[in-house]
């Protein structure tokens, strides 16, 4: 400390008390959590069906055996996710910004954006996949790409853009209008205001739901496999399960997905915390 301050005895006593109390409460909470978990696990393990359940879902040896194949599928999921996500974010932001335009002049633009959102958010992804993945090639137009993988990605982009656009819109609307007024008063145009003032604050506020969509996109890339062109993690798991009547490959795929999600979550949390207030909690 630059001013040579050392805690007074009373402060030290307070700190000690707080530490004790914290430690005790944390201990109680941790113990109860662990005990609860342990009891749950014990109950499950002692049920008559447990050995069969374990063999069906947690056959460790078999899990190791299928791991490489499923990991390879996951790598495909990840690549598809990255490619689609970039397009989705751009398109969704454009739609969200279109919806924020005010005045009767922009009515058609706004209406188009709303119609887009309503349509592609409402349609089941599987239908969009079928219509594009099977329907487009069936039009037999030479200049249209006929790759099912391409159309599968287009379907993902169309569906997810509608969702992500709504997320962005929520963020944009949560920025107080006085921020816009301040920016406009500095001479920034509507576009510049959005770009430099509103959108950065908006995105930061909706990072968790954005990540939600990213995580489910990552899993839904696998749906392209209905078009019969890719072997993603879940399809690989299904193939294995079909061969052995054992659900362990699904569990392996699930765990890999979880392991992939965790760093993404921590990263976005970190980004969110780095800029602006952390929010939450407040007074002691």
């Amino acid at each position: 400390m630059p001013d040579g301050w050392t805690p007074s005895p009373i402060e030290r006593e307070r700190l000690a008390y707080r530490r004790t109390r914290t430690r005790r409460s944390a201990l109680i909470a941790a113990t109860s959590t662990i005990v609860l978990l342990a009891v749950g696990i014990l109950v499950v393990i002692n049920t008559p069906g447990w050995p069969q359940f374990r063999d069906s879902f947690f056959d460790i040896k078999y899990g190791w055996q299928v791991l490489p194949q499923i990991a390879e599928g996951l790598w495909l999921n990840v690549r598809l996710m990255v490619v689609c996500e970039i397009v989705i974010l751009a398109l969704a932001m454009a739609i969200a910004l279109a919806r924020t335009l005010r005045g009767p002049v922009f009515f058609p633009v706004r209406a188009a954006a709303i119609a887009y959102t309503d349509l592609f958010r409402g349609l089941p992804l599987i239908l969009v996949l079928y219509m594009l993945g099977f329907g487009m090639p069936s039009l037999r137009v030479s200049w249209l790409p006929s790759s099912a993988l391409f159309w599968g990605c287009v379907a993902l982009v169309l569906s997810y853009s509608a969702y992500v656009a709504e997320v962005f819109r929520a963020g944009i609307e949560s920025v107080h209008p006085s921020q816009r007024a301040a920016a406009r008063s500095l001479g920034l145009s509507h576009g510049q205001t959005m770009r430099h003032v509103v959108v950065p604050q908006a995105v930061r506020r909706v990072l968790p739901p954005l990540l939600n969509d990213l995580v489910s996109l990552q899993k839904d890339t696998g749906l392209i496999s209905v078009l019969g062109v890719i072997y993603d993690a879940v399809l690989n798991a299904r193939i294995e399960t079909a061969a052995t009547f054992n659900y362990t490959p699904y569990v392996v795929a699930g765990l890999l997905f979880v392991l992939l999600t965790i760093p993404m979550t921590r990263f976005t949390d970190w980004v969110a915390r780095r800029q602006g207030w952390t929010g939450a909690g407040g007074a002691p």
Partner: protein
Amino acid sequence: MSEVGGSQGRRREAAGPASGVPSEQLDTVSGANESGTVSDGGAGAALLRISHLRKAYGSNVVLRDLSLDVPDHQCVALIGASGSGKSTLLRCINLLEVVEDGQVFLQGKDITDPRVDGDTVRTTVGIVFQSFNLFPHMTVLDNITLAPRRVHRVGRRAAEADGMAMLERVGLADKASAKPDELSGGQQQRVAIARALVGKPLLMLFDEVTSALDPELVGEVLDLLAELREDGMTMLVATHEMSFARQVADRVVFLADGEVAEEGSPQQIFDGPTDPRTQRFLRRILDGGRL
């Protein structure tokens, strides 16, 4: 209404670029429905001329029939009770609100004309808000350099040098890389002033700039304002500080019931008010021991 109704002019061209070319010679254009001679409001001397302005929020008519001149290189103080529409007037001048009727002339150009580009007008008019409205996701320096860099296309290095100089001037150079949330209210207000000044506007609008400042700093800010006026700045200052209005302003305007109830030199207003509303207002302040 009737005066304006008879003869009116409007401009086809948008307001000029950021540089303040004083009232260019513009063609008079016949209106689609009526034509007439240009009523710039006689322009010339008055950088800002407000003519029969009306603004309402729903059925709440805030500004009724307000006319006001702010001559070049002058500091006009706007006083009036809370809710009398001072902030609203400033927002209308900066085109942050669409007026319901009447006109606002800047350098003789009717900026309320829908053909005028609002962004260009706003680059020439600076405003400091009552609530500071800093951008919470940017550092203090970024707040200040945003407009120069994005609107005036100044390079980052030059903008930051300017910005630092301006921060120096308001005594906050050491907070350049802090976030607004980490500043005290007074510090935030000074950053807001610096942000508005760095764009070198022709006209500055101040809305209660001193309300969050501690008395020590008020002096500094007053010096700053005086200095600005020396540099040729025209200012319209909404304020509750009667001492400020008395000592710094060239003219004082008293708002009441959505109009200019009285205006004149500080001596006229403070020592010999003629309007009964002004008299009552000043008497109550005097009772509060604040004059």
